[in-house]
């Protein structure tokens, strides 16, 4: 069986940056047997090592791109990435975006790599997660579990399905 990995990244002490960990925690109880679920700080070089040998990887992280808080972006990295500055919140060493670009350059990206980015509102010190981000958690979990069940064979997901109709 191919190796599937879900990596929640972020900092649980920086407001909405905790969402990667919160989503991955929920995924643990709902994902197909054999899926490995990890929580990391988001050090890019660590990620390059962590996903080595995995066939299907889903990284969950908070993002800031100026969209409404709670909006989910689900990206198939091998089909072209976004502007990676979106993910440059890490203050130390190599960010997720840089890790992905470095992995591309080195030819070491997993064959199926998705990033589930959830738009955050506040990244201030503290453990409170904003209401809109909390509301996005079940939607993100559903999307990740479904992708795992499909073994990464992504389908086109309408935005309304990702983010509700409101």
């Amino acid at each position, binding site marked *: 069986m191919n190796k599937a990995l879900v990596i929640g990244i972020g900092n649980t002490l920086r407001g909405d940056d905790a969402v990667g960990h919160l989503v991955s925690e929920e995924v643990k109880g709902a994902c197909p047997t054999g899926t490995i679920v990890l929580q990391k700080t988001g*050090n890019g*070089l660590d990620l*390059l*090592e962590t996903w080595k040998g995995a066939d299907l990887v889903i990284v969950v992280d908070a993002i800031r791109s100026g969209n409404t808080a709670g909006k989910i972006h689900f990206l198939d990295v091998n089909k072209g990435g976004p502007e990676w500055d979106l993910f440059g919140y890490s203050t*130390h*060493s190599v960010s997720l975006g840089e890790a992905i670009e*470095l992995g591309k350059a*080195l030819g070491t990206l997993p064959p199926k790599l998705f990033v589930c980015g959830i738009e955050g509102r506040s990244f201030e010190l503290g453990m409170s997660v904003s209401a809109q981000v909390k509301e996005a958690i079940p939607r993100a979990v559903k999307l990740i579990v479904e992708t795992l069940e499909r073994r990464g064979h992504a389908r086109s997901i309408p935005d309304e399905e990702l983010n509700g109709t409101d």
Partner: protein
Amino acid sequence: MSKKEEKKPTKRTIQVKYLARVEGEGGLDVTVEGKKVKELALRIFEPPRFFEAFLRGRKYQEAPDITSRICGICPVAYQMSAVSAMESALHLKPENSIQQLRRMLYCGEWIESHTLHIYLLHAPDFLGFEGAIEMAKKFPEIVKRGLGLKKTGNSLMALLGGREIHPINVRVGGFYRAPSKQELSALVPELSSARAAAEETVHWVSKFSFPEYERDYEFVSLRSSDSVYPIERGQVVSTSGLSFSASEFDDFIKEEQVPHSTALHARLKGKPYLVGPLARFNLNFDRLSPSTRKLAKDIGFVPPINNPFKSIIARSLEVHYACDEALRIIFSYEKPNEPYSEATPRTSVGFGLTEAPRGLLYHQYKLDKDGIIEAAQIVPPTSQNLMTIEEDLKSFIEENSELSQKELGWRCEQLIRNYDPCISCSAHFLKVKWEEL
């Protein structure tokens, strides 16, 4: 145009708003008139972090874990200087095998930190790439070698420290748990491969093209009384022959505030000085392992080296040494009877000095009778190098004023990166005085 106006020297400015490929937040402003640098400020605007203040009132046992949070790249250095200071305060002398384990943990950090800097932050400067990603596109196998080498540093940190970043196994008096010989021996194959990769790294960087630039530096590093290269212990020595112990640090080295920086600037007897790999190498060449020394001689790299751009070679030789030293320690290791010894709190002052990857790291603590910290002082390597970096920049710009603005800006950034500055560390300090100008 009048003759008077014609004579007026051209004025130009070099501004690097945000320094790339350094740890933390800083920038550079330079004003040059003709060939003279009129103003130069290495701006450090990383917010101050007040570690020395919030150590007050904490128990002596907490200092290693609290101070390790100053930096994600060199947490071991903070832990080692903290335990060294606390043990000097409390008259605790851990047995030799504990010292060896600490040294090995520190080797892990040197390998990890140095390799990150060599491959991802500094080498792109020499090869004309914007950054590591562009370099990886052209030289993927070289970057993979660097990442593999760095991973060996992580393995050492994980085994001895309990995890790769911010180790949790270090305590005053020793370790919470000491590994078995068998556990350490399992690292031998990986370390042996890393040593070979480190040798290739030395040959690789030694072939880079280096700007012709030298200055007479006052190099400062530790030097130990036994025959090993300075890492976790030793007496401070300098090029001009100064020699002093950790308890005399404050007599020789003073820190001062400058308006353009949230980091303090340090002076040795009133003058700038240089700490880090180049200083250690120049002052301790005879203490390198025989194989690292031979490697240095093979590439013609022997003291005195006064070109700061060549610090990348010294750094790569130290990676080789750290692999060598970790292997030596594994082969001679005997598990300690107890992983740590207990201390008895007393009213005291303790001093600790170790060699962080970037240079000397000083800790001083004042404890009350119950072992509660009453005062703390931390002097990281980057704030000791800041004045020297500014002087390098000034003289380099004046010597190379014919270069284009773009080329000069590029070289200035490269020059700053010679020191692998850790701005996050240097802005940890306590005394902040904001003045409206």
